[in-house]
């Protein structure tokens, strides 16, 4: 039986523009399996990022449901939604969105700082920074931990953003054009890194308009006129390994083989 980690049903979203409204999403639906690497493609302004924001509970749909492991995200209370953003989802943005006042290590540790209370942090500080260092090593920036974001290149900042997104070992990584602001070489490196995490069992949903990037995914869906139109197949050697075989780093990973499905 397939295990849907995420199930978005009939998402509608419109924005007010002057006196009128622009309908961005008109009933978009997407089902993502555990361990899957799904790419959402579409032209500029098609609503890809908007859909991703709904999936990560960064924005609220006008209509429709987003279910995470069978639980509706938007029917939950605010604290549970905050917990969902903190523990279940990691977000990577096109423009990195690092906090300029914090150094690299602190930026990675920020989800833990947000999670813990003043007193809880005292107990968790050492472990949190150790794990943040570990993530920093995994993204290959161990020697840059004291540097400020302004002292990093775009690729390095995106690596830090990925490390931050994955620190709490979320079940789902949502990436909004993570290579969109990088040159081809660096973009490829970042993509390879994401692929590596996926191989380790990380479920990833990524938004891009770059066809080459989409080739790396198990499955590509296209967003046109506010709805998901088509599935464009899988990458070669698609998700054949279970998470545990690849050195799973996630929490509560089922390790089931993914099944692609266009809803």
């Amino acid at each position, binding site marked *: 039986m397939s295990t849907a980690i995420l199930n978005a049903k009939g998402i509608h979203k419109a924005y007010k523009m002057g006196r009128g409204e622009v309908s961005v999403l008109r009933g978009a639906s997407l089902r993502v399996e555990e361990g899957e690497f799904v790419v959402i493609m579409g032209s500029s302004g098609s609503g890809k990022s908007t859909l991703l*924001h709904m999936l*990560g509970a*960064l*924005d*609220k749909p006008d209509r429709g449901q987003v279910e995470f492991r069978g639980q509706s995200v938007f029917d939950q209370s*605010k*604290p549970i939604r*905050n*917990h*969902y*953003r*903190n*523990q279940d989802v990691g*977000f990577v*943005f096109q423009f990195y*969105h*690092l*906090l300029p*006042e*914090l150094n690299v290590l602190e930026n990675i540790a*920020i*989800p833990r*700082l*947000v*999670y*813990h*209370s*003043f007193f*809880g*942090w005292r107990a968790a500080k050492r472990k949190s920074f150790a794990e943040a260092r570990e993530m920093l090593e995994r993204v290959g920036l161990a020697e840059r931990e004291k540097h400020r974001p302004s002292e990093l290149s775009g690729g390095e900042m995106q690596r830090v953003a990925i490390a*931050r997104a994955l620190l709490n070992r979320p079940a789902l990584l949502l990436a909004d054009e993570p290579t969109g602001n990088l040159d081809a070489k660096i973009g490829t490196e970042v993509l390879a890194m994401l692929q590596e995490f996926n191989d380790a069992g990380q479920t990833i949903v990524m938004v891009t308009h770059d066809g080459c990037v989409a080739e790396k995914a198990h499955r590509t869906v296209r967003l046109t006129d506010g709805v998901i139109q088509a599935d464009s197949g899988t990458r070669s050697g698609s998700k054949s390994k279970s998470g545990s075989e690849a050195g799973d780093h996630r929490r509560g990973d089922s390790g089931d083989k993914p099944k692609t499905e266009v809803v």
Partner: protein
Amino acid sequence: MYKWFLAWRYLHTKMIAFFGIASVMLCVAMVLVVLSVMGGFLDTVRNRSRGLHSEIVMNSHSMQGFPYYDEFSQYLAKKLPDVIRATTPVLSTYGLYRDPAYQQTGPTQVLGIQLDDYVKVNSFGDGLHYQKYFPGTTHLGPQQMPVAGMAMDHTLTLPPDLEEANMRWRKSETDQSLIDRFESAPFEITSPEFPVFAVKGERQFATRVGLPGYVGPERNGIIMGCDIINIRRPDGNFDRTIARGANIVLTLMPLGPTGNPTGEPAAKLHLRYADDSRTGIYDIDRMMVYVDFDLLQSVLGMDSRQLVDGNFTKPRANQLLIDLDDGVDMDVAKDQIALAWIDFQENEIPLDLDSSEQMSLYKVQVLTWEDMQRDFIQAVEKEKVLVTILFSLISLVAVVLVGCIFYMIVEKKTKDIGILKAVGASGRGIAGLFIAYAAAVGVFGSILGLAVGCAFVWNINDIQDWLAWLNPNLRVWSPDIYSFDKIPETVKQADAAWVGVIAIISSMIGSLIPAYAAAKVWPVKALRYE
């Protein structure tokens, strides 16, 4: 945890935070300076006002005075022995004084006092100038002019009792600097024919050669308000223009028992300048002179006089000052004394008083010193409240300014808010971050403001001297106007604590609206903000 962590980080990495701290600091310093100076001013006014009277004053509200004051004193001593410590009657009238040496005439208010008792019920004795240097030499009884003598070696010797008093003073004086100042005072011969010596800034006439002593006919003493005959220097000290024992003429208008002038010619009293008094309140020190109670009572016709029917009038006084025992509540004592006065009138006074006497008794009021000086104290109190309100309004500007600064910070940090929310921060947590940030700005601003405010208040007189040195017109505190030599320079701990706490709370209030706005925003809206 991130709230404190980021608040601290924002605090020392954001230039705008320093503007917030600076505005809080300036407001705290400003309000503290105003509160301390005005509070100190009020305290000084109260203390000096308190020193003018006794704790309780029975006031006749008429120059005509009231009889039976002496009998009531004795009645009170028996009736309320645990309440009353001392009583003394006072006469009050108006007259003209003349300083023949300087050809100076002016209006004056004349108090008739029993000096030995009067100094027991208030702090009048502390303001007597010569009494301070020559204890026991100031009195209002008959006296001659004390004259310093010049020995053959041109050193100055004081009259025998002044010398003795001087020695006594030197032995008892604990403040060595006062003695040193006296020792170093110049003795200078200003004229070989008629030598005048300057002693501690005052002039003392001296016999050319010979023993010091006293000259002239005996005359009753008069204590003058220090601003009547002396010239006040900007530093608050005085240039004394006449010698102790100099002749002062006082012209008075006697009043009969009915309150009408007796028709006798104005009484002219030749007195000797015995001392000058400094109460610290300019209006009093430039108007008031003090003479012997019995002398004034007699001159004014307020003593016991025989009437045509052979009876005698009762002596009258204008006030009866009543000093209370330690620990006695002033307001309770006031009520007790007022009741005692009613009892006294009903039981102890003959029933056949004439109407003017009855009226004069009826008009007597029992007041506390605060009642007596209410107008004066209330004016200063109201001034303090007014100035504090004005400066608090200015401080409100600081709250609005902090609000603006935080609004700008929130605007600038909108993307951070989006990032933090994207990693799970709650709206309440985000609001808490900005309120914690504001609290940190408030705490640092308050600490610095209190430090600056205290430093300013503690050195306010030096600062004024420095300003006056730059430009004399910048001297804002003139003792002529405020009657105190110095600007109050004490900071009350409670004032400082309140100002600091209110500044911190105000800073937090200033951040509430932006913090609330930050809490409400959806993460994606914040992230898209440019």
